[in-house]
């Protein structure tokens, strides 16, 4: 079932990005949101939960985010942070794969596995709505060829309308106008629940913590590196940090079998290394302190969708 589900039946979202002249570009006309992007990545790799392609997708996704930062002013941080939400979930996924299988009595394991299921369920759902939306569009277009009758009443009937009782003074009327013309605040449609969310977790800080531990102890498993994490988000941040450290070639990672224990080894010896070097993609001091935005509601500002 899972495999079928990812068959992007007739609607492959074109991969929005292309490498061109060494610079990353996003074809905005094809781009309609992070899930879209994720779907396209997944269909490109024919992602299967148990396949290694997941790692590829994750890496590619991180590549996207990097490229976003590299592209500078072309992309708002809003967009990047929305991607980060997805990236974080993807990393949950990847992290879940790295945990020893069969040992799911650990609450964290379960949380991670659920995160994986959640993501795929969400993707499936999104895809379903995408398809339905296409059907609705066709239907609406067909219906637009029919015009309902919509003409003024014949005078004889218009004349039958009860005489209007009008008790309003010009100033009453002006008050109505003032109210109606007042620029409206965007409707406060939701009670703020930001305070309920876990605080933003800094990848840089987490990198600092696990970097020091690895320097001290040499070899640690991912489990050990995250056993003191008090939230899923910290686990995700630490995983991101590991990827960054791997890129910086200060650690090596080893996994004996898919879903087996991930062993992390400090490989930089006494070399000078600081978490500061890894941070740009995730910590944008100048713009936003939120490193891994936790909830969609955090997103602010205008609509980030690329209409059509």
């Amino acid at each position, binding site marked *: 079932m899972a495999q079928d589900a990812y068959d992007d039946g007739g609607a492959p979202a074109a991969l929005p990005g292309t490498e061109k002249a060494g610079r990353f570009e996003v074809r905005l006309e094809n781009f309609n949101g992070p899930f879209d992007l994720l779907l396209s990545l997944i269909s490109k790799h024919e992602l299967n939960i148990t396949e290694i392609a997941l790692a590829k997708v994750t890496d590619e996704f991180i590549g996207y985010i990097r490229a976003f930062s590299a592209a500078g002013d072309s992309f708002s941080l809003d967009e990047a942070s929305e991607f980060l939400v997805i990236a974080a979930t993807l990393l949950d996924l990847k992290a879940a794969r790295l945990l020893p299988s069969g040992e799911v009595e650990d609450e964290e394991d379960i949380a991670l596995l659920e995160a994986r299921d959640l993501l795929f369920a969400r993707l499936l759902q999104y895809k379903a709505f995408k398809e339905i939306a296409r059907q609705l569009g066709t239907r609406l277009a067909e219906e637009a060829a029919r*015009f309902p009758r919509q*003409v003024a009443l014949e005078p004889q*009937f*218009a004349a*039958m*309308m009860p005489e209007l*009782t*009008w008790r309003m003074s010009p100033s009453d009327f*002006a008050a109505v106008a003032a109210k109606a*013309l007042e620029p409206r605040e965007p409707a406060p449609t939701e009670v703020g629940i930001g305070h309920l969310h876990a605080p933003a977790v800094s990848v840089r800080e987490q990198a600092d913590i696990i970097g020091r531990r690895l320097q001290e102890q040499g070899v640690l498993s991912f489990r050990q590196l995250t056993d003191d994490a008090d939230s899923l988000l910290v686990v995700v941040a630490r995983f991101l940090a590991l990827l960054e450290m791997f890129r910086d070639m200060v650690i090596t990672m080893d996994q004996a079998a898919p879903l087996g224990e991930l062993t992390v080894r400090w490989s930089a010896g006494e070399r000078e290394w600081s978490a500061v070097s890894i941070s740009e993609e995730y910590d944008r001091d100048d713009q936003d302190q939120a490193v891994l935005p936790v909830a969609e509601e955090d997103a602010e500002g205008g609509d980030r969708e690329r209409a059509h």
Partner: protein
Amino acid sequence: MSEHTEKPPGDAAAAEEPQGPDVDSLPGGVPAAVEAVLLVVEEPVTDLELATALQVPVDKVREALAELKDEYDGYTGQGPDTGPTRRRGIELRNVAGGWRFYTRSEFAAVVGRFVLDGQSARLSQAALETLAVIAYRQPVARSRVSAIRGVNVDSVVRTLVQRGLISDVATDPETGAVLYGTTPLFLERLGIGTVADLPKLSPHLPGLENLQDFDDTTY
């Protein structure tokens, strides 16, 4: 108007290549095409206008109109394809040089009952607010009123037109949209002489002259 909308290709296409399929070949032929147009026109439409729109000789339109009129009256149907028809509740009449559908007078009582049902002597809050926006922003397109109020105002605008409080006063030269303004009846109800006598809006509102700024961008 909105970033989320695209011009329907139909508009442009219709303007550029008015060919369309040959109406004669469509089911129902010219009479059916004439019927369809008659269903949507506000004002009586002439045979010449119909012929132009349908791209058929005016004689054919005249023939179709005569046939339709008889059909609606219940007279005809002796052709090979059609039998006698029932007299309909709709009447096709030639008034002021043009053709238009009317309800048949026998049913005036029934139609009147229907029209009156649910009618009120008072304007709803929605209607009042829409009227206020139109009064202070006239001449104004419905889409703009809708943008200011944040809701669809189509049916309220129809109600206000029906009530004789507003009417279409102009056409937007660029978009072709109907622009609405208030009527003398409105001024009379409010007890003022001209639109210029409307009370000034309180100063905390953006000046009327600046309204363009926000409603073109914010909504």
